[in-house]
């Protein structure tokens, strides 16, 4: 939160308190403003929040612990499919929300450990290749586990997932008070916002703790980390499983929000997209992950809405499909980023301690 506030140009440094309030207000009124442009935009914001959770989780693995993971979307898939299995007509079981979400997170964490064990000794490129393979394995399993026993329903995916039901209150139903109607997308927004804020608080606490410092130590110099007594095996597994947990929770929320899961939502491109958000925003820092996720979710949609009409007025017909344009601009943005701001939009000046804890009298 403070990091986000600090990242606001000009105001962030001069008046941190005002900047912080600005962040809170923007977060709270964003869906109301978005609704003025149409329901789609609130939906996009909801998705942006899910991607924020993913980016935060991946940032923990890549940015803090320094383990390049190209198969992160697999954990998202595990979370989403857990929801699909345990709360849909597919198997005919309808577990409540508060049981499915932790289970999804748990399964994802387990998947994180399963991935973690074989890759403990790998670093850099080699690690990236294995994790990439892992992500694809999970997707291919989802795609093909419909025969001989139909478990995942194959490429068709699973339909009609239960919506989120917070203790009797169905998030998918719009609320009508008199003539005034509050759309369900708002509920999702605020619920996801709460999840993101929770994630940020948790990750911030982890960062400034013995665990966060040990991760950073491992990332900066593994041999030296071992030499000061850090058990790198356990800490790598912890990073993989905790990162996966965030992916699992986001996946569960995604499944119920969308009401439908299919393997194509969990392709390699999605893993890369999340990694791009982390790198674009600024690796190893929370604000970077949040901003990166927001921009890279919203920008393509804005583009989609602008590119077509602009081309039609200019040339009379559409020359470049928005989807093509999106990849083009995204790659261009990444190249420019690497050249001009290699540290990301918000370069990390991550803190792993609170020096103010040192007794005031001691300091000179």
């Amino acid at each position, binding site marked *: 939160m403070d990091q986000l506030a600090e990242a606001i140009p000009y105001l962030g440094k001069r008046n941190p308190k005002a900047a912080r309030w600005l962040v809170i207000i923007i977060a709270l009124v964003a869906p109301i403003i978005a609704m003025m442009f149409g329901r789609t935009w609130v939906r996009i914001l909801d998705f942006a929040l899910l991607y924020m959770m993913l980016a935060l989780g991946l940032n923990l693995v890549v940015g803090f612990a320094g383990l390049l993971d190209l198969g992160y979307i697999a954990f998202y898939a595990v979370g989403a499919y857990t929801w699909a299995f345990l709360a849909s007509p597919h198997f005919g079981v309808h577990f409540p929300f508060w049981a499915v979400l932790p289970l999804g997170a748990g399964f994802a964490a387990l998947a994180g450990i399963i991935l973690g064990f074989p890759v403990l000794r790998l670093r850099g490129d080699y690690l990236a290749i294995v994790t990439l393979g892992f992500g694809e394995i999970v997707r291919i399993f989802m795609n093909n586990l419909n025969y001989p026993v139909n478990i995942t329903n194959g490429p068709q995916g699973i339909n009609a997932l239960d919506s989120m039901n917070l203790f009797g209150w169905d998030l998918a139903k719009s609320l009508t008070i008199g003539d005034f109607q509050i759309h369900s997308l708002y509920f999702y927004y605020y619920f996801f916002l709460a999840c993101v804020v929770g994630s940020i608080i948790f990750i911030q606490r*982890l960062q400034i703790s*013995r665990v966060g410092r040990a991760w950073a130590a491992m990332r900066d110099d593994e041999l030296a980390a071992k030499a000061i007594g850090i058990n790198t095996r356990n800490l790598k597994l912890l990073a993989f499983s905790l990162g996966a947990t965030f992916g699992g929770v986001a996946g569960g929320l995604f499944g119920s929000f969308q009401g439908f899961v299919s393997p194509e939502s969990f392709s390699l491109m999605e893993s890369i997209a999340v990694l791009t958000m982390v790198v674009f925003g600024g690796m190893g820092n929370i604000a970077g992950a949040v901003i990166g996720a927001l921009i890279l979710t919203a920008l393509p949609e804005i583009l989609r809405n602008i590119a077509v009409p602009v081309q039609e007025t200019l040339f009379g017909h559409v020359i470049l499909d928005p989807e093509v344009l999106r990849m083009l601009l995204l790659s261009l943005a990444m190249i420019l980023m690497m050249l001009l701001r290699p540290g990301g939009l918000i370069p990390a000046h991550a803190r792993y301690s609170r020096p103010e804890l040192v007794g005031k009298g001691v300091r000179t």
Partner: protein
Amino acid sequence: MIKLLEARNIGKRFGGLTALSEVSLTIAKGEVYGLIGPNGAGKTTFFNVLTGAYIPDEGEFVFNGIELPVGKPHLVVEAGIARTFQNIRLFGQMTALENVMAGHHIRTKASVWGILTQNKHTREEERLTTERAYELLKYVGIERFADTVCKNLSYGDQRRLEIARALATEPQLLALDEPAAGMNATETTQLKALIEQIRHDGVTVLLIEHDVKLVMGLCDRLTVLDFGKKIAEDVPSVVQKNEAVINAYLGGGKHA
């Protein structure tokens, strides 16, 4: 003399190269013990075997009467042996204070659950870790750089920081790998005072060093290695006159 560390017939080979063979030595509690020898004699290999970075082919270490685990660096640190590196290895993106705090990792207990809930134990531990790290920075004399990212520190200060980080693991034996390498005369004098202070405060020091003046002035006893073998062990004044040592360093005798 109370034995702190005993190395028994340590042997280590890399392929056909024998880096160490039958090296035995005993370090007493409270002394500064030197390990010297020409380049490639096996000093750093000895360090790596001792601290668990390499697995020895033969022999074992007994520390405080207990055999040290093999190939498990974190357990060696937990037992009470800390080391520094010949080429400084700090955690580049962290501040000086955070580097030292990271060194305290092995002596802290907070769990992920404790960190998530920020319970009393975790908060108290975090405060103590911060305080202690700051005290250690003061101890080595670089507390004014506490909030400086460590890669921006000067060379001599980085060496001091590495010693502070090693001390944060609360060791009984501090193994320093060429701490004076690349230092000027003033810095070396300050380093000597620091090592003497560390010894005075009850930490035994094992020192690899090329600076003969520093070694002779600082060490209580010395072992000289040459081609992976121990060729002498004694107090500095005796070692200095040892023929085999002079030959090893000056290339006399049959090598000449």
